[in-house]
């Protein structure tokens, strides 16, 4: 309702009701240039653009602070898959700690692609960091021989968890902190094995969408062959992330940007995003909140940890 009553609406308005029509002569009819706000383009990636040099400096400072100052380590250990996330993480660690303080570990399974292994070696060679190959096949098979019917999803989870066993043991052996490599898109999609890929205590890329990881990787000099290849978890032969998702990373990231900002699905669809894409992305985020949290603990006391007893991670 209009707040007309806020303006005095007195008897003088009565006269308005039957006002006299006098045509005001039209001196000239002007046509003005019109400046429209640029129409919204669902394909536009401007919102996802980062200032890559600035982000690189920031993440190097973060790694130095978190690994050295706060936790008292001088070295880092990174699982090198040959993909862009772990490659970029290794580059950032080498910048932060020096190449002599970064250990790359390649952990292939018998079905891992040879290209993955070569790309991991390429990163180690380019950076001049030490690199070791530890096959996980025997360890994985050692368990799976009791579970011959395990489907590919279960087998993939076993591989991811085995890799973390190795990474944390190498951490202990080398006095080097394990560094996580998960990006924001896969974290939001829950596209990782819980308490495996996501378990390293420090993660520089977790707030960068995949398309932003690509931008930063190009800036920092990760070999093009790694940045340009289709992303793959490489748990199953021929697997690609985008094939698993049913949506490309650039499309997903553009939708995630607005969903996380607080836009409703309806509004995104009105803005021109594809309806099934929006629903797919929203469903993936909505069904995986639990994966981004610690386990749910039954609260019994008024000193329940993380409910009542609260201390910051760096306290």
């Amino acid at each position, binding site marked *: 309702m209009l707040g007309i009553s806020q*303006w005095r609406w007195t008897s003088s308005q009565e006269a308005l009701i039957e006002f006299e029509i006098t045509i005001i002569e039209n001196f000239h009819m002007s046509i*003005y240039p*019109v*400046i429209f706000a640029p129409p919204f383009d669902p394909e536009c990636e401007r919102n996802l653009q980062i200032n890559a040099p600035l982000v690189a400096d920031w993440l190097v400072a973060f790694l130095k602070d978190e690994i050295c100052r706060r936790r008292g380590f001088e070295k880092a250990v990174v699982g090198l898959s040959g993909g862009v996330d772990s490659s970029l993480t290794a580059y950032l660690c080498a910048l932060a700690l020096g190449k002599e303080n970064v250990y790359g570990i390649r952990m292939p399974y018998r079905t891992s692609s040879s290209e993955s292994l070569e790309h991991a070696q390429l990163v180690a060679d380019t950076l001049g960091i030490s690199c070791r190959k530890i096959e996980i096949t025997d360890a994985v098979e050692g368990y799976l021989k009791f579970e011959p019917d395990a489907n590919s999803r279960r087998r993939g989870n076993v591989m991811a968890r085995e890799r973390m066993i190795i990474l944390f043991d190498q951490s202990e052996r080398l006095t080097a902190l394990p560094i996580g490599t998960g990006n924001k898109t896969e974290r939001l999609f829950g596209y990782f094995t819980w308490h495996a890929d996501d378990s390293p205590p420090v993660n520089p890329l977790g707030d960068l969408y995949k398309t932003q990881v690509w931008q930063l990787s190009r800036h920092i000099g990760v070999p093009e062959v790694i940045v340009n290849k289709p992303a793959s978890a490489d748990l199953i032969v021929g697997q690609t992330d985008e094939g698993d998702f049913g949506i490309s990373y650039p499309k997903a990231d553009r939708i995630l940007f607005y969903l996380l900002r607080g836009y409703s699905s309806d509004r995104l669809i009105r803005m021109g995003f594809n309806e099934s894409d929006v629903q797919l992305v929203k469903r993936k985020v909505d069904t995986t909140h639990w994966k981004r949290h610690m386990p749910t603990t039954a609260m019994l006391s008024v000193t329940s940890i993380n409910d009542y007893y609260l201390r910051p991670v760096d306290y």
Partner: protein
Amino acid sequence: MAFRILTAQIKPKKGDYRHNLCKIGDVISQAESMDSPPDVIVFPETVLSGYFLEGGVREVSKTPEELFKDIHRIYLERTQGDTGKLDMITGFYELDDGKYYNSAMYLSLGKGKPGEDQSGIVHVHRKFFLPTYGVFDEKRFVARGRTIRTFDTRFGRVAVLICEDVWHSITSSIAALKGAQIIYILSASPGREFSGEQVGNISKWATLLPAIAEEHSVFVVYSGLVGFEGGKGFTGSSCIIDPWGKTVAIGSAMDECLVVADIDLDDVAIVRAGSPLLTDLEANVGDLAMEMDFIARGPHRI
């Protein structure tokens, strides 16, 4: 709620009310011919007469009722069909109850008789801060407004402020505290200081307006006069700014043009959820009022 706003920066003809009313009519005609016509049209400060009038204020001032009647008539002339609605904000020199003011009227236009279809004057804001220094001489010719109000419209609760009103951050704070989700700002800003990358007053607005939008998470719609008056050129740059403080559309600094953007009022809640500065301000209003009262009483001067 999504709707379309058009801010029209035009050059009025000095002192010629009827001519300027026709220019408003031209904007209405052009707006109506758009594929998607605007829901709200905003004109600059004193668009019906020009800004620097000195004693001429007495000759061009209109009562709110007279102005509404004329604009409603021209709206009916310029639009087709029996239905349709348009909200408008326009600057004018006002005569009311024996005093002259530099004012802005928010009016709602429809095709029925005034009152029956909610056509009518929704609010008149009288300029609160009258610049009277250097090139400005407003206090000599017009009286000061005494209130900063917000009011409900078809498109949310809004406030209208004029030029120097918003050079004092407290006015937009008051408007936001009173619930405005859009602050319409009308101005006639003469260009001065030409040593920087932009004309000095344009830089000032470019700092000020996004800061208001961002501090209170409100939309800011700015309509600036263009054209020269006796050697003093107004700098246009009409713009629409979202509650993140991002300018979504801006007009030129010198030429007449219509600046159009579609906005969604839902953004206000989205931004405030992430940045509850206004809620923090609300919570502290009591203490701030006591501080203001203390200042108004003046003991700090002793």
